[in-house]
């Protein structure tokens, strides 16, 4: 027998109670794991580049910018490459099955953002074969069950064709994977020349320019670009891709704060339940703690024994919860934008340790403060 065995046996003294505690802790850590993975994924915001800049209309994200701005942006010596994009939102078959198509110049996109999106020369060639070709992101392809060569129809919400129709037919030329798991791949890449030629309104405009700065670019390049068009008919607002996505998400809610509140509430509840249970559990065996003290167990060892017990319960419960969260991110992660990163795991581990110590502290304090004589009277 070791000291740890003693703590473990104490923890399993009432198996049902311990099991319920572990389930309670597992649920709290599952909530935390999923919520933190969601924030880490932030629907692609975490995978979004802090380096790439998006140039949009200063009057609103839905306001288009004239294509004519592009040469002036490209001419800036701090700019390495520029691409452009018109975003089409629509649905497949039913309105709630929403998809997005980014209409771009594939060659320019490759030079600006190809690495992050996982674009290859073959994919760019493939989309270049026909105007209706699209490249589909892995997450979207998996969610829709699409494969290369398949023909699809997207009904757009806002961009109509010249014949009045909103049905856009595409053929899937390939699937791009994204640089890593946190890259947003839940969209399609279409050809701007096709969209621009067929759409009824807004010709020769784009929703955004995408800028890759030179490696040695000044930090305030965004402000510098905005300054170029400050007094023009189309003033711009330039942000990094990450800033843009985060701001976009904040339009709906401060997801980070909601996640903190929800997980905070879950952990406080767990803390209350476990502290309460542990206080009772230790009080029930105050007599035995008196015996241990009589045998020579010091206060430090009694504290270590009780903390070891709570940490054991948290390690099993929290471990199970985090394992389930990890499984969820593996199976549903790409669709839901969940990323169970090492940082999420490290934070969860830190919370687990803090809660384990916090819940054991009060019963441990009670145990060491009770004189042996009083402990013997507790039977």
């Amino acid at each position, binding site marked *: 027998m070791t*000291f740890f065995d*003693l703590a473990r046996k104490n923890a399993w003294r009432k198996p049902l109670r311990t099991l319920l505690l572990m389930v309670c802790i597992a649920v709290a850590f599952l909530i935390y794991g999923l919520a933190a993975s969601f924030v880490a994924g932030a629907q692609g915001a975490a995978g979004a580049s802090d380096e790439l800049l998006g140039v949009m209309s200063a009057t609103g994200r839905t306001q288009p910018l004239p294509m004519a701005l592009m040469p002036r942006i490209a001419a800036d010596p701090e700019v390495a490459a520029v691409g452009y994009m018109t975003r089409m939102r629509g649905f497949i078959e039913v309105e709630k099955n929403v998809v997005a198509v980014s209409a771009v110049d594939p060659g320019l996109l490759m030079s600006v953002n190809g690495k992050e999106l996982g674009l290859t020369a073959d994919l760019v060639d493939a989309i270049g074969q026909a105007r209706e070709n699209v490249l589909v992101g892995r997450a979207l392809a998996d969610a829709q069950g699409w494969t290369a060569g398949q023909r699809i129809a997207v009904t757009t919400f806002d961009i109509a064709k010249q014949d009045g129709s909103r049905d856009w037919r595409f053929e899937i030329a390939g699937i791009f994977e994204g640089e890593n798991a946190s890259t947003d791949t839940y969209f399609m890449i279409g050809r701007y020349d096709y969209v621009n030629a067929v759409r009824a309104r807004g010709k020769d405009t784009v929703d955004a320019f995408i800028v890759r700065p030179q490696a040695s670019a000044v930090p305030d390049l965004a402000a510098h670009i905005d300054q170029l068009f400050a007094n023009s008919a189309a003033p711009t607002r330039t942000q990094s891709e990450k800033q843009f996505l985060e701001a976009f998400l904040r339009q709906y809610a401060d997801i980070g704060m909601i996640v903190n509140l929800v997980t905070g509430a879950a952990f406080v509840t767990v803390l209350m339940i476990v502290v309460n249970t542990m206080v009772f559990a230790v009080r029930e065996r105050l007599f*035995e703690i008196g*015996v241990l003290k009589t045998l*020579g167990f*010091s206060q430090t060892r009694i504290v270590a024994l009780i903390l070891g017990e709570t940490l054991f319960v948290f390690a099993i419960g929290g471990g199970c919860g985090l394992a389930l969260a990890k499984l969820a991110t593996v199976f549903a992660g790409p669709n839901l934008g969940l990323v169970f990163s090492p940082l999420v795991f490290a934070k969860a581990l830190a919370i687990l340790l803090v809660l384990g110590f916090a819940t054991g502290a009060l019963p441990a304090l009670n145990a060491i403060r009770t004189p042996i*004589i009083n402990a013997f009277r507790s039977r």
Partner: protein
Amino acid sequence: MTQHIAQEPYIALKGISKAYNIGGQAVPIFSGLDLCIPHGDFVAVMGPSGSGKSTLLNMLAGIDRPDAGSLRIGASHLDQMGEAARSSWRAHHMGIVFQFYNLLPILTAAENVELPLLLKPLSRRERRIRVERVLDLVGLGGRERQYPGVMSGGQQQRVGIARAIVCDPGLLLCDEPTGDLDRKSADEILEMLCFLNRQLGKTIVMVTHDPQAALHAKRTLHLDKGDFVEERRAA
């Protein structure tokens, strides 16, 4: 107040005073108690309820402290020690046998005996050897994996004794060790204590209500109203 002076005292209590606060009133238990017990002695302490037997035992075990006076066991002055030092002293110098055995029900016999050894820098193998040796000594070889719940009172008390001596302490304190046992089991336990005293040289202080149990001791002290009123030596 009676003085019990013997040569080479292993345990020396001098001028011990102790009072408990009951209902806001100080109730004295001892007022200047003296006691000397030489090394290797086997002393039975008898007396009516409330005479101070348990308080005396608790002070000898270092789990209660005198209000005044000096309490020395071996080279250790318990009255001057803090809680941590007394814990360490108990772990190294004293074994205790309780009336109701006080075994941990979640542990097997061997694990209960092993408990005090967890406080010593011993390997797992060394601990196992010591545990097997003392369980053999108390006649429980082969019952290492049994839980206290399936053992008789006599067997549980043997486990209690094994736990008390596994660290090879010089002093064995017994609080009514036969109080919960039938006559036959009680006699077996008392024979075992005699063996530990005579063969292994343990100093034993045993609190008991049972005159027959006291007959096994080398001498019996009668405590009444916080003072020793009579001493009887074994023939």
